[in-house]
């Protein structure tokens, strides 16, 4: 008796003695979990912070304000105002003249060339376009903000370390001196970079823009949407509402689930072998990209649409059937409208996936260097994420900035699409 009391006391003692250790372990576990969540959030913060801090400065572009004399002798010597002749005129000379006047001490050939390189190679085209838009400019003098070269842009934005040893930076001390002089005279300005949103690709960072890539993404997604939404919804309706339960429909189901997890690059191989080599569709065309992305997003849309159909209660179907509707009428008149918000949400999420997809499009040749903005789904083009991939390979510091800015635009589109989907789900979600 005495012994059993002793054991009971001892059991409690054991528990009490271990409590401190157990509570400590509980706390540790809890902090570990909190740490994991914080680490995850930190990753999001670092990723976005890194990209935004690298890219925000690309939304402004350095310009150099110069007083350009539209010399009739150069542009239009015989005064005929023939557009073809004007287009061939030496606009480089016009852009260089004010620089030469400003720095008369620069005389050597190499020095002069370095001085002219302060301006972008796109600056003469800027003047040409102005004259083409307004021929009356010829013979006048006007102060014009000309695009600066990417190295100057980087220097003005502070991305080039002025104190680094000269061989480690892309601009030498003389050029820095010129830029400082220009800045002292208040001629260097940073303006909103409209060219970044309207231009196509270019080898010169200061002229490169995402206009072409955005248009390519638009046509690709248009093809994807037009194909994948109707097909996905139709497949979901059949599988959910009409299909008998047998081996065939099981096979289709397993298939769809597996396709959702097939690596995207394999879809690219399919597109290359089927659409391009077998059917002879054009390479680099948004049409082919859209077809490949359709096959890729179909499983997502089908799975989301089936979930939406499933959430419509059977009582709705029974009521419709009860008043004499056929099965098809029941589905199209009653079930489908009720599940439409869910289907649209799934489609938007699928489209967001398609917008961010790169690998399969590399396979079908949408990585070409394309300067023109595509005008239709059959023109060669590239898409926004592929443009990011292409620019990320370029060594110039200015392209790092542009790449980050393109990523910011891409992420903005994706966040807008996903937010729209979430809002729509909240707004239309019905609990039956």
């Amino acid at each position: 008796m005495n012994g059993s009391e002793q054991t009971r006391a001892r059991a409690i003692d054991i528990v009490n003695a271990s409590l401190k250790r157990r509570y400590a372990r509980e706390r540790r576990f809890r902090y570990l979990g909190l740490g994991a969540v914080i680490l995850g959030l930190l990753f999001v913060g670092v990723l976005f912070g890194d990209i935004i801090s690298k890219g925000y400065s690309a939304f402004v572009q350095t310009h150099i304000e110069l007083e350009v004399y539209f010399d009739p002798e150069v542009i239009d010597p015989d005064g005929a105002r023939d557009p073809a002749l004007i287009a061939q005129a030496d606009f480089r000379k016009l852009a260089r003249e004010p620089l030469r006047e400003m720095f008369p001490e620069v005389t050597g050939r190499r020095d002069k060339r370095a001085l002219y390189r302060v301006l972008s190679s796109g600056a003469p085209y800027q003047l040409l376009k102005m004259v083409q838009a307004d021929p009356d400019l010829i013979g006048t003098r006007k102060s014009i903000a000309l695009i600066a070269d990417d190295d100057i842009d980087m220097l003005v934005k502070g991305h080039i370390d002025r104190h680094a040893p000269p061989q480690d930076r892309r601009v030498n001390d003389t050029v820095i001196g010129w830029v400082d002089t220009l800045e002292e005279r208040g001629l260097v300005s940073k303006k909103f970079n409209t060219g970044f949103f309207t231009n196509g690709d270019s080898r010169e960072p200061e002229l490169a823009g995402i206009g072409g890539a955005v248009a390519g993404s638009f046509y690709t997604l248009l093809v994807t949407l037009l194909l994948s939404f109707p097909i996905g919804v139709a497949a979901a309706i059949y599988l959910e509402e009409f299909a008998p339960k047998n081996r065939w429909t099981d096979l289709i189901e397993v298939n769809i689930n597996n396709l959702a997890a097939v690596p995207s690059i394999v879809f690219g191989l399919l597109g290359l072998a089927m659409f391009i080599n077998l059917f002879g569709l054009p390479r680099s065309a948004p049409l082919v990209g859209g077809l490949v992305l359709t096959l890729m997003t179909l499983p997502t849309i089908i799975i989301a649409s089936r979930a939406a159909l499933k959430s419509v209660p059977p009582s709705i179907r029974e009521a419709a059937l009860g008043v004499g509707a056929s099965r098809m009428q029941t589905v199209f008149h009653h079930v489908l409208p009720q599940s439409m918000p869910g289907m649209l949400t799934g489609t938007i999420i699928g489209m967001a996936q398609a917008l961010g997809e790169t690998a399969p499009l590399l396979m079908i040749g949408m990585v070409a260097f394309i300067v023109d903005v595509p005008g239709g789904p059959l023109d060669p083009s590239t898409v926004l994420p592929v443009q990011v991939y292409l620019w990320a390979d370029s060594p110039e510091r200015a392209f790092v900035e542009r790449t980050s800015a393109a990523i910011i635009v891409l992420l903005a589109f994706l966040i807008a699409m996903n937010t729209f989907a979430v809002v729509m789900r909240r707004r239309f979600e019905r609990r039956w």
Partner: protein
Amino acid sequence: MQLSLLILVLLGVMALAFQLGRRRSLATVGGRSGTRNLHSLPAYYGFYAALWAGLPTLVIAALWVFFEGSIITSMVVESLPAGMRELPPDRLGLLVNDITNLANGNIVSGDVDQAMQRAADHMNELRSIGKIALAGVVLCIALAAGSLAWRAIGPRMRARNRVELIVTGLLIASSLIAILTTVGIVLSVLFESFLFFQKIPITDFLFGLEWSPQVALRADQVGASGAFGAVPLFAGTLLISLIALLVAIPIGLMSAIYLSDYAGPRLRSYAKPVLEVLAGVPTVVYGFFAALTLAPAIRGAGESIGLTVSSESALAAGLVMGIMIIPFVSSLSDDVINAVPQSLRDASYALGATRSETIRQVVLPAALPGIMGGILLAASRAIGETMIVVMAAGLSANLTANPLDSVTTVTVQIVTLLVGDQEFDSAKTLAAFALGLLLFVVTLGLNIVALHIVRKYREQYE
């Protein structure tokens, strides 16, 4: 441009057929008052006529668009002078490319001679003939089929049943596309892989230890051995995936546990969507981050403690890939952890267990199969991931287990082999398809096992 015009015209014809069909059905029973004598609602007669007018032509137009290019090319080749036609296939392919470029008004690689110019003109001529013929054929068929359907309309015709039959057919066809996609993937990679294995024995491919896909053009060329051993690629893929999983599993699992069992509703409602953002970020963004931010940082850190780190280290690619798959692990684990019945937890608490003891000794073992399934899905994701490794991992196929070294992966090689100009009879290009086949088989296997585990586990508690 003209194709879209044709489609618009076709849609117009369909709308017209709808109106005419509807009117005719009403006319046969003497206007609106006689509707009850009709078998179906008037609109169904309209749909019937519209479907007949539209569907056959849409099918024909689609087939035309798909095959137009190859048919015209073969016709142009046949019209070429005999000397050009008998070129070896690869030279002929280049020639056809040049002709196509010439016809499109693009830049041509070589000199343009008379025969080529003639062929290009011929191609343009064929194209315009084709366009006119397509428009004519399509419109004729649309009108013929539509008017046949229109004539068949009468009060006793079961229009609704027929329309529903057609619609059911369309629905079935849509759901078959999933199967066709799989068949297409399997066929396209199998066919090219088959050609590849005729050149390179399959055992050399699967067990060879050296990968250098540059095939020698001349026999005496240096550095072009053309070795196709895939083992280094698999080792590299596994190394990077392993690093990714080592990052993603602890963080994903612990954050899922914390968010489902410890966190208050406020933290959960903010932290969960933010973590999900990681899954929505395009992979090319991760690749950029890995290549331009993380890899130099790791290299710098390694050099400051005296390690030689490759600037394309497996570590950088793996870490970033790990960050990418955190949400997969955490959301799948979250699902299975929430699926463990509350009664199990309550029983454990009643015995005096602390929360962490309950989680570790009751919840996790019960959820383990589901978590394993989630991890397998994440692994298949990591193996198939392309952009991160293309941008951040290397190209040289080193057989190493050192995460600071540069390794290459299956997907990187597929991209490098297939981007740019390709000739479809060289082992180099075909090797990409063989790699694709392997990738498909491996990820498919992982997915099937994972889905099976997840499903089986779910049934246990339902």
